[in-house]
């Protein structure tokens, strides 16, 4: 579900589901990077078993990042992907399984969305290039400087689609990567790695779900496996809930709206391409030493704990006095189902349900109301009870009219408030004129003696005229601005004085005419207008309306089945661009029986023909490409050059509905029959369906077993012995071009070395198979232990158990952050540095006071007398280099440090202060760059350790109590 609003809503409503990830950073010593040992305990105080990567969420940001310069070529992209996986692996530290799933050919139901995305992306790419060229010319004509345009081909993100050479190459690179890590990284030595590349049909996250579902259904599955799924899509939350596994966590990049992006033209931050002036780059830092650092912090990760979400949902959904026994698991399934009404990848959302308007809360309310009448749950194991769904829909339908009216009111109210706000802001510009000269206001009791007023009429006249001039200037400036959109003429002195240039943009956007809305859902007759405008049918056409509703009902059944049982039909899709109204769901009970059986997915190249615009035809063989452009082609209608966008009440083109024609599968296949013989052997290989592959390292118990299979050259399928792999089952089959121990793995990337001492082994893998009629049960497995509750119990206040302490991480018994002596010394040092040498040197009362107080809480180290000054210097320099990531020679003794020492020594004689007080002071002063401990992990650990290395007389601090690391 590509609905960012859903995640925003969820994390606001259920804040405790989010836990910030602690990430141990690799250290650098003398310029050599020391990798993190991921076999060590997880710093997040939780041990996770399986890590699943929805790879497309990784591939996109690594190949065309939004917040940093794009990689120069494909090799750099691959390396970026490797580094990203390494980072995730380091945070999650899976102990059993790493499952990497790349999107393969998707079900037909997804094709419309894919088409729309790719048609748009292709156009956006062309537009960006055009804009860049235009702006570049303008900037250079004005005498600005721009870095030379690199002669690189624009990366067409459309190549991230199964069947392209890029995806094929990516699969090869990942095999190399896995073999390398299994051979060389101790953290990987015992894990089983699954790679499901783009040649295996199915969307990445659904291949992962299939894996989990099929493992759960076999008797050897460990019901207490802790799953961790990586990806930003909101539907992963639904999928995770749908598994009914008690330990399920999602990891994703922290969502930060409005992140600054570098200008596409000059690469600098702080302006967009259309405001680019081509100015010389500003020096970053005193000696431009931060030139390559991006001013935004590195993207951090968060965990989303589904077990906590389940706690929240339990509170929300629990219903008393039901006519049937309450089952929380079933109500979770119903909740998941209702979320589909609000938006999913396969169906347009119902017009009356907007997540931002609290649609899910409304649905839950209705659900709890109606469930008394329905006599049972809406869904079971992914199968929908339509009779009951109709009751929900009808209840939504009753409210529909009011929802639309309220939406309009809210919009109007919002607009009014914005207008008023703008007026207020404008109004604050000052009076029409300010008295000056002899009328200028003077401070009471000022020294200047008041003079008698002379020639008052003349002065007043001058002031008035001056005021008029200012106003006229402003008006003139405004009309000039209206005439010249991007004009940079300075518009009169008054404009400069008030520096109003910044506000221009906001004003302009206000003047934008509203996109016309012919539907006017807030006025009577909205339903007729909607069907007329969106579907071009008359209000009397009940048949057509019924057809839309029927398709939507099928869609709801298909989507739910997809989440709980896997893809029911590769062929089914919703053949309209818009949804019907909730109130149209009448007599839906008989509208759906079952899907067509034994449907097959498209082949990769076939799917490319189905989702690409003609402009991306370069990813296809020549004769196939011709079908997209040749007027004589029998499928030319699939490939319009331009298409209509219905803003559908939204403001920007990218938010609107792309009105693209649907693909006629029969005609597509018929057309391709003629060009299939043109495929080369290589293309045929890319077009064929591939298999998942499983890899293990040499110390894994499964390794010898697989090796035996290769030695026996038995091409029969073999089942994994459950005891060798934590109860994971599946079917093995020999790989044609396998990764084998002692067989070197060539690096597909020139800048990376070949893996000459490979010890990993790989073999084809297939999920456990079940009969076609098998139903995967959506229940908690016997033997599963529910994780401890995290939320504050509702009756806590009555129970008299003292104040509630919220749980912030995974571990309920987490030690609170605490600084030991050396920590405080360091902190103090930091603060001292940032205040600058002058402060301490001259010893002003404030600085000295603080310095003294902070020191006062720590007794002096034993050998302080002789060594303290030099030890501090040693510490200082090593810490400096580790933080800035550069190895610099230790700085020469800083004169201020000596005086600071005196200050410190002085402080120790003072009264003793408690630690927390000192700590808080620091925070309040906001100096010294002190951040909460989890951000500082690297330097907190690095610091004292290196201080110890410098061999000074005081003992090392005790190892941190929170983690099990050894210095």
């Amino acid at each position, binding site marked *: 579900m590509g609905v960012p609003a859903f995640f925003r809503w969820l994390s606001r409503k259920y804040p405790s589901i989010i836990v910030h990830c602690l990430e141990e950073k690799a250290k650098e010593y003398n310029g050599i990077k020391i990798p993190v040992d991921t076999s060590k305990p997880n710093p997040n105080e939780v041990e996770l078993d399986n890590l699943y990567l929805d790879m497309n969420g990784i591939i996109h940001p690594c190949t065309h990042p939004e917040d940093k310069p794009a990689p120069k070529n494909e090799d750099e992209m691959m390396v970026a992907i490797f580094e990203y996986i390494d980072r995730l692996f380091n945070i999650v530290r899976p102990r059993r399984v790493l499952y990497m799933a790349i999107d393969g050919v998707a079900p037909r139901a997804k094709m419309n969305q894919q088409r729309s995305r790719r048609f*748009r992306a292709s*156009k956006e790419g062309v*537009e960006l290039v055009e804009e860049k060229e235009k702006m570049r010319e303008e900037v250079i004509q004005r005498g600005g400087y721009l870095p030379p345009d690199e002669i690189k081909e624009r990366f067409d993100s459309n190549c991230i689609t199964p069947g392209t050479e890029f995806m094929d190459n990516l699969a090869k690179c990942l095999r190399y990567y896995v073999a390398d890590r299994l051979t060389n990284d101790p953290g990987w030595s015992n894990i089983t790695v699954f790679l499901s590349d783009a040649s295996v049909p199915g969307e990445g996250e659904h291949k992962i779900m299939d894996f989990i579902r099929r493992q759960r259904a076999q008797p050897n599955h460990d019901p207490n496996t802790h799953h961790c799924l990586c990806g930003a899509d909101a539907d992963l939350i639904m999928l995770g809930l749908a598994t009914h596994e008690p330990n399920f966590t999602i990891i994703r990049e922290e969502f930060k709206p409005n992140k600054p992006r570098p200008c596409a033209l000059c690469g600098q931050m702080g302006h967009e391409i259309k405001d680019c002036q081509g100015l010389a780059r500003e020096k970053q830092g005193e000696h431009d030493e931060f030139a390559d650092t991006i001013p935004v912090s590195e993207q951090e990760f968060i965990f989303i704990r589904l077990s906590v979400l389940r706690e929240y949902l339990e509170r929300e959904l629990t219903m008393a006095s039901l006519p049937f026994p309450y089952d929380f698991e079933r109500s979770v399934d119903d909740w998941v189902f209702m979320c589909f009404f609000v938006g999913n990848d396969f169906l347009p959302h119902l017009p009356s349900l907007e997540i931002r308007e609290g649609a899910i809360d409304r649905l839950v309310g209705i659900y709890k109301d109606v469930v008394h009448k329905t006599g049972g749950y809406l869904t079971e194991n992914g199968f929908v009870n339509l009779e009951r769904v109709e009751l929900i829909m009808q209840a939504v339908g009753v409210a529909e009219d009011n929802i639309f009216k309220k939406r309009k009111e809210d919009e109007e109210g919002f607009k009014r408030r914005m207008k008023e706000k703008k007026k207020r802001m404008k109004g604050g510009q000052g009076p029409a004129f300010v008295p000056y000269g002899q009328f200028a206001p003077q401070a009471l009791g000022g020294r200047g003696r008041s003079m008698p007023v002379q020639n008052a009429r003349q002065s007043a006249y001058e002031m008035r005229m001056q005021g008029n001039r200012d106003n006229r200037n402003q008006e003139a400036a405004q009309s000039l601005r209206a005439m010249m*959109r991007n004009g940079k003429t300075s518009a009169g002195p008054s404009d400069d004085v008030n520096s109003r240039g910044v506000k221009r943009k906001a004003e*302009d956007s206000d003047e*934008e005419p509203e996109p016309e809305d012919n539907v006017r859902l807030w006025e009577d007759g909205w339903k007729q207008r909607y069907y007329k*405008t969106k*579907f*071009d*049918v008359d209000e009397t*056409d009940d048949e*057509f309306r019924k*057809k839309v509703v029927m*398709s939507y009902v099928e869609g709801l059944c298909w989507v739910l089945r997809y989440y709980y049982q896997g893809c029911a039909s590769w062929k089914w899709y919703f*053949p*309209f661009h818009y949804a019907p109204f909730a109130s149209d769901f009448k007599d839906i009970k008989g509208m759906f029986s079952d899907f067509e059986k034994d449907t097959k997915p498209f082949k990769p190249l076939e799917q490319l023909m189905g989702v690409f615009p003609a402009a991306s035809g370069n990813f296809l063989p020549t004769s196939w490409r011709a079908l997209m*452009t040749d*007027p*004589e*082609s*029998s*499928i*030319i*209608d699939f*490939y*319009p*050059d*331009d*298409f*209509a*966008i*219905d*803003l559908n009440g939204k403001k*920007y*083109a990218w938010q*609107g509905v*792309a*009105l*693209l*024609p*649907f693909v*006629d599968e029969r*005609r597509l296949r*018929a*057309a391709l029959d003629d060009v299939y013989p043109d495929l080369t052997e290589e293309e045929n290989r890319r077009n064929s369906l591939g298999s998942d592959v499983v890899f293990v390292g040499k110390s894994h118990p499964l390794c010898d077993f697989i090796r035996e299979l290769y030695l026996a050259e038995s091409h029969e399928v073999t089942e994994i012995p459950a005891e060798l792999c934590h109860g994971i089952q599946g079917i093995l089959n020999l790989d044609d071009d396998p990764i084998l121990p002692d067989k070197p793995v060539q690096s597909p990337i020139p800048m990376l070395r070949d893996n000459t001492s490979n010890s990993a082994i790989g073999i084809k893998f297939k999920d456990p198979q079940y009969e076609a009629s098998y139903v995967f049960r959506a229940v908690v497995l016997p033997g599963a232990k529910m994780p401890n509750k995290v939320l504050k119990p509702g009756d806590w206040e009555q129970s008299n158990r003292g104040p509630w302490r919220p749980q912030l991480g995974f571990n309920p018994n987490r030690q609170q952050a605490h600084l030991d002596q050396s920590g405080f010394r360091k902190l103090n040092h930091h603060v001292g540095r940032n205040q600058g040498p002058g402060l301490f040197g001259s010893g002003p009362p404030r600085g000295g006071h603080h310095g003294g107080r902070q020191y006062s809480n720590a007794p002096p180290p034993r050998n302080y007398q002789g060594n303290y000054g030099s030890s501090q210097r040693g510490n200082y320099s090593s810490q400096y280099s580790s933080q800035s990531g550069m190895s610099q020679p230790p700085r020469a003794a800083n004169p201020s440090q000596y005086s600071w020492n005196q200050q410190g020594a002085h402080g120790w004689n003072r009264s003793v202060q408690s630690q927390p007080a000192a700590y808080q002071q620091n925070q309040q002063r906001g100096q010294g760059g002190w951040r909460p401990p989890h951000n500082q992990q690297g330097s907190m650990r690095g610091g004292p350790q290196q201080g110890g290395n410098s061999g000074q007389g005081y003992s090392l601090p005790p190892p941190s109590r929170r983690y099990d690391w050894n210095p």
Partner: protein
Amino acid sequence: MAAADVEDFIEQNRHLSDLVETFRTISESDKHWKSRREFIFRNINDYEDPHVDHLLALSMVWANNVFLGCRYHPELLEKVKEMADGIVVEDAPVFKTRDELIKQHQKR
């Protein structure tokens, strides 16, 4: 071919019209289908058996242009407009293509 003529044609060519009826897609309303069916009837003689798919493609190019707002290569559009000459579409919807929206936005 006026509407009455189409009815006559269907009466006289039952077999053909049954075949053409299979070309209707689920998303087509009566109004859209009637127009496209007429397009097919008018031109089917020029596109005998192995080329029917080409005719269907052209009929969709025309229908997508009229009812969905799609733009194709000008020559192709010209061609299908000629083929559709005389088909009356009442009250055809009006669209803004993506390019037009973007241009409009840039002008601001």
